[in-house]
């Protein structure tokens, strides 16, 4: 596996992505939505609730909001990954691509980077905004700086990248089996569900603190490995050229 070769693929595909308004819109709307929307909500709650109780329930609420970076990291890359694979299918460009001295793994890795890099940039941008604004509005009522903390660190450095990888791998596997970007996105949306379940669990009792998140990260890592094997099998030149529809 030569990173340089995969990077040529990724650079090319990212340039294609840049020309798709819908994909760019998702990449911008998500960090702005989470980074501005939730702090605004927190500000509203701080402004309208009695100051006494805030210290007890505000942290839990903010943690739940922070989890949206994990959910976003899993949803944003699906359409990019689906587009960069189904797009090649539609244009029938995989055959000439695979005829170059690039291994299947390098092409696959390039496609994964195409979805992963912009997603992580969006997560980073959105989370910096989120943490800064949350600190700004909660510093007074809480009396201390809520961010950065261990929970968000695990979320941003472990859970979000892993969730993103799971989503990308699943998109690759799904993209091999569908003929257009839209259906790929629809199926890939399923990955979203377990995260929403986690989120709801977090809202209704399960602590989404650093410790539990580490356990979740371990599970994600396992899924990443399993899907990696499956996606390599799916993204095999013989399969691509003779079975993919």
């Amino acid at each position: 596996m030569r990173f340089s070769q995969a990077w040529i693929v990724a650079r090319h595909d990212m340039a294609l992505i840049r020309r798709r308004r819908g994909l760019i819109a998702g990449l911008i709307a998500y960090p702005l939505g989470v980074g501005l929307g939730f702090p605004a909500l927190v500000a509203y709650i701080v402004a309208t609730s009695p100051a006494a109780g805030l210290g007890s329930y505000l942290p839990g609420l903010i943690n739940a909001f922070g989890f949206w970076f994990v959910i976003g990291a899993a949803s944003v890359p699906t359409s990019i990954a689906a587009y960069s694979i189904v797009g090649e299918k539609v244009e029938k460009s995989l055959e000439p691509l695979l005829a170059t001295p690039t291994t299947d793994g390098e092409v696959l890795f390039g496609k994964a980077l195409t979805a992963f890099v912009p997603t992580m940039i969006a997560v980073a941008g959105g989370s910096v905004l989120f943490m800064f604004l949350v600190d700004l509005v909660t510093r007074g009522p809480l009396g201390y700086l809520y961010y950065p903390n261990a929970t968000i660190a695990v979320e941003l450095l472990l859970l979000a990248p892993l969730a993103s990888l799971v989503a990308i791998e699943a998109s690759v596997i799904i993209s091999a089996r569908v003929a257009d970007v839209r259906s790929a996105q629809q199926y890939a949306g399923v990955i979203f569900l377990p995260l929403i379940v986690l989120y709801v669990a977090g809202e209704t009792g399960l602590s989404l603190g650093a410790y539990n998140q580490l356990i979740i990260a371990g599970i994600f890592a396992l899924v990443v490995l399993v899907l990696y094997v499956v996606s390599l099998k799916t993204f095999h030149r013989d399969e691509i050229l003779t079975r993919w529809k």
Partner: protein
Amino acid sequence: MSMIHAENLTKQFGSVTAVDRVTLDVQEGEVFGFLGPNGAGKTTTVRMLSSLISKSSGRATVAGCEIGNPADELKLRRQIGLLPENVGLYEGNTAAENLTYFGELQGVEATALRANIERLLRMMDLWEKRDALIGTFSKGMKQKVAIARALVHDPILVFLDEPTANLDPEASKTVRETLLELKKERRTIFLNTHNLDEVQRICDRVGILRTQLLTTGTPDSLRFGMSGHRTAVRLAHLSDAIVAAVRARLAPNPVEVSGDQLLVGVQDPTRDNPAIVTAVVAAGGQIVSLTQLSPTLEDVYLKLVHEEAPAA
């Protein structure tokens, strides 16, 4: 050394045998035309030889690399260029961007790549259009860009799967001239095509495939090797006596009269033509002209493809 050497190369898709025990050699610098009806296995053969899909059995070396050997694959793909059956260009990118991408994947150094792209696009008459999106190109223009893409890294061996399909006569001519140019540069060309005229004009050798390789040879050797030659003899005066004399001399070959001409079926022109002349002259006839009507490549092709039953 053979540029391509295949031995019993076979590809099965489930229970369907797409290519059956193909054994062939293509020499360095040769233009090899690969003919065969739809579904004959031409594309499948090219895909195996360019290490795009695996073979089911048999073996082949291409440009000194063994196909199916993972250690040789990248080296093989650096040396070959491929024009696939579907051009597969990125419609949302410009012509220059498409070529740059493939040049980079082939590891062509940036300055050399720019020079190559300019040379190729100029050759294809598309230099002015280099910054136009492929989506705005006609089929023929796309085909030309895809051919340029196959050449962007100066491959020593080029596989072209129906390069002139979809092209107007002028564009086909450009492509043929390009191929002849490549031939001058001693590059080897493996050409899948349905265009027999093209084969006759540019191929050194041809192979006719129908799942199995039916025959290989130079276009002329195939034409002359086939039975069904006819000799047309134009006479000053055609009489029944002359016809009878020729019939007697050349029996059992068929002899027909067509206007002032005799049409004589011959097996071996070098033996039969002098016999025809002798018979006509002996019967008092005067020969104005004698023309050898040899089967065209099309005759050879149609006969082989329709008549030859696949061997068990």
